[in-house]
């Protein structure tokens, strides 16, 4: 389990990174935390002619408030988000979801940009980004563009990011004070990728945000279910969310099970988010 040969670049700036990506477009891959990419390289399930290591780019790691969004630099480690007071205040679903991403040591290295760019349909962060209607900022040779989460995730490990683009930032819409959040997840073991995971926010205006991972080839946001929840019918919300899933069977769960769990966990997440919302308004 040793990776095959690659050429290694470790640019100090974004511009250099983007230049490298465009020079070797298609042959180069970004290396961030390496917690997903390096296992694939070690198994030789994939190989790239060049790796562009972005870990030396200083200005890619930040969490900052930017208007109605929490802007998180691509190289921000999961661990930093867990500890971030800004995230806790403006987007509490993030640290909540983070608890389910692998293990603390993995979160020390894994990056937010990496989790989003990798687009594992069972990963938690993409579900959160989708639930909140967030976006990603991609920078290429011809400048930056912002892509909505739902347009970004295209399929299993597939996104609309171009080979010469660097994901520089993810933008999570802030949740107003008084929002209740919940992340429900079912996995074979703690820290495993989700069999099904549900991100949920109950907003003070009575509306809901839902994002679901593990149950389709991309994370998805069941809007019908959000509406049903807003109408107070959590059971229906669960069913609608399940109806929108397109799960596949694997080693750990049948497709039927996954679909049913979308319903169950959606209801649980809604209930818990509502409880927390009420708790916060009381408290």
């Amino acid at each position: 389990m040793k990776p095959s040969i690659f050429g290694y670049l470790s640019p100090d700036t974004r511009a250099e990174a983007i230049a490298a990506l465009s020079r070797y477009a298609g042959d180069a891959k970004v290396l961030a935390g390496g917690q997903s990419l390096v296992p694939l390289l070690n198994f030789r399930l994939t190989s790239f002619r060049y790796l562009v290591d972005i870990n030396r780019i200083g200005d890619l790691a930040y969490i900052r408030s930017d208007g109605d969004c929490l802007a998180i630099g691509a190289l921000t480690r999961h661990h930093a988000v867990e500890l971030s007071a800004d995230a806790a205040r403006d987007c509490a679903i993030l640290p909540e979801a983070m608890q389910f991403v692998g293990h603390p040591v993995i979160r020390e290295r894994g990056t937010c940009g990496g989790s989003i760019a990798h687009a594992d349909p069972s990963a938690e962060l993409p579900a959160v980004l989708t639930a909140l209607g967030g976006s990603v900022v991609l920078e290429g040779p011809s400048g930056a563009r912002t892509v909505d989460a739902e347009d970004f995730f295209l399929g299993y490990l597939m996104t609309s990011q171009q080979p010469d683009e660097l994901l520089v930032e993810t933008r999570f819409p802030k949740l107003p004070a008084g929002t209740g959040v919940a992340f429900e997840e079912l996995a074979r073991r703690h820290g495993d990728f989700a069999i099904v995971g549900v991100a949920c926010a109950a907003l003070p205006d009575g509306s809901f945000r839902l994002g679901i991972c593990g149950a389709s080839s991309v994370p998805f946001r069941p809007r019908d279910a959000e509406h049903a929840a807003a109408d107070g019918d959590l059971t229906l919300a669960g069913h609608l969310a399940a109806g929108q899933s397109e799960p596949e069977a694997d080693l750990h769960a049948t497709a039927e099970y996954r679909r049913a769990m979308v319903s169950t966990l959606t209801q649980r997440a809604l209930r818990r988010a509502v409880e927390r919302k009420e708790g916060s308004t009381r408290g």
Partner: protein
Amino acid sequence: MDLYRVEDRRLLTGHGAFLDDLQPVPNIHHAAILRSPYPHARIRGIDASRALAMEGVVSVLTGADVASMSRPFPSALPRQAAYYSLAIDKARFVGEPVAVVVARNRYLAEDALSRIVVDYEPLPAVVDPEQAVINPDAPILHEDVGTNIALHRTLRYGDPEEAFRTADLVVKRRLRFPKYGSTPLETFGVLASWDAAEEVLTIWSNFHGPFSMHPVVAQALGIASNKLRFIVPGDIGGGFGIKTSIYPYMALIGLASRLAGVPVKWIEDRQENLSASSSGTDRVSEVELAAAKDGTILGIRMKIYDNVGGYFRPPEPGCTFRPLGNYVGGYSFRNLDVDAYIVFTNKSLTGPNRGYGCPHLYFGIERVVDEMAQQLGLDPAEVRRRNLIPKSAFPYRTPTGGLYDAGDYEACLDKLLDAADYAGLRRLQAEARAQGRLLGIGFAMGVDPSVSNMGYVDIAASAEERKHRHPKSGATQGTTIQVDDLGKVTVEISTTPQGQSHETMVRRHVAKEFQIPEHEVMVISGMDTATRGWTIPSGSYSSRFASIGISSAVVTARKVLEKLQRIAAHQIEANAEDLEYVDGSFRVKGAPERSVSFRHAAGIAHWDPASLPPGTDPGIYVTHYHTMPTALPPDDQDRVNSSNTYGFMVDMCVVEIDRETGEIQVQKYYGVHDSGVILDHKIAEGQIRGSFVHGLGGAMYEEMSYDADGAFLTGSFMDYLCPTFLEVPPLETHYVETPSPFTVLGSKGIGESATETVPACIANAVTDALRPLGIEVNELPVTPSKVWGWLQEAAVHDQS
């Protein structure tokens, strides 16, 4: 500061000596192994020329080389089904070695793998052991055998027909036990160096015995056994039986070194480990129990299909026969009928794995015992009690030939029910059920065999066939003790430990025998077959240390003392019988001023042979091989005392099932163990907890999975799920200590105990939880997705 174990300081500071840390010879090259991507395929040709042309690549070993340089491994199989260290003309499981590249480093060796072109003709595959036998369309793995049955034995004890004829109740269940392995964190490692001048092959590896594999490798390689040198480092990163099955790789890398002309190292990577190392067998079985109305077990019938994968390799069929002496577990029934098929399928190969055969056995028996209790309306604990072998019956001869040394099974059960407040738990369960919750209580018990008797392997042959063979017996373990001229002690053990604290225990007990401080004793573990004492059963497996390992060390120490006592007696002109050994000195009873110290006596043996008593050799270097008189060959009725000491454990656990998700929460697990005298509670507890988690893995998480076509699905630790810190439920242990009359210190093995009963106990508890819905757990691992599926079926049933 003194640490708890002698092993600890080096291991805590990163100074252990594991296989991959060794650099015993210069110019070490590295191997990578090309493996079959197909479960079943004919190999029509291999072209390695492009690999050989790569810079840094030294050689490529293929089937043609292996066929010409070696012979199939000898095995208990009377038939053909040749098993070589590498596929010759056909690959029979995903991951089977097909070629070995030797290169300057592992990176280059792996690069070269992709340059080897193999012309495969894929063939249909079969993975289910029952289907492999009963389905006439199942592909045949070994044409020369003509069937997928590697071995078929029927064994009969007592009068099972009568038992089933007179029974008030017969329960029968079909059961599936999964394929899993203990996946030690340190994988296999082999370093082989072929010395062409002397024709000596030296192999360093993390092999942990039994050294019965030494002749197996020597015969396969066709080299004189004294020119095959096995060296094992002092530290092995876990074994659990798995590393017994490293020997095919010892042969393979030996051949690679011979072909390459350089020393070759191969470290198994995790992908190789999961797909092609070794595991326990998966078993499909039908277990049938005959009972009287009062819950007395009258007899058991089992039909077993044990899946050994693509080839049959020693020490299989231990999966089936290693527990033969304890096939009745802790029960007193005498009638048993076993119809055992050992089957080839297109799965990876098997061998010893913690509990070797016992988790399978007790899963079968304990499931049907529970169903019997249920059908008779009896309490499962009470039914077990009624059938226990009573304390007064020990030593107890089982119908299958086992000789149980000692135990107080009923005391264990009492302790369990008491510690867990069983009555209270049942009340709690009733309340939970009234609220619609799915709370279950499960039991399992078993007899834990330790110190395998080499004689059991002959059960693979029929009694008639055995008449024409040399018998096998024994369970020998050797120790060597050297006392230098200053009275300092070195002990060489041949138990090749993998974390079981042998150095600590031997040091402690030898120091105690010699009445000297522990730090004056140094224990050398590891092995070198060329320079140190070993014999066929040497090694660590079948939990043999606390029985035979420590017995061997203590008896050796006593032999040293006898010699020193003779020397001392001669020195002070007394009779040896008149001396006593007190506070590290030999002194005349009643005249303590006439004494010779341990150190002085040893000094004489080294410095002054002229002062030795007549007939006494100089030096203090004593080797003693200890065996057990109970380790006899099978008799003509297929009875064999397959092990030499037998512990006992009875477990109970409480689980709750989430109706909506099928998740299983093990709220609490209790285990009571009678493993004789516990030599060290901390260490024994460590063994139990570790084996508990292996059992938990098999029950709920771990499986080497294949799809129906033979594709392998669990090639990483993301898919093969070892329990983590967060999966382990609270475990409460208790001990009953009934001394074994067969061992020097009254102790016996404990390291495999919990592994053997946890799968059955969890299955019974989940079944108990789901009892109101009529669901039974007759296959493992039990997962949320499966439970949820069963709940849906039950709901549909309910509606119709």
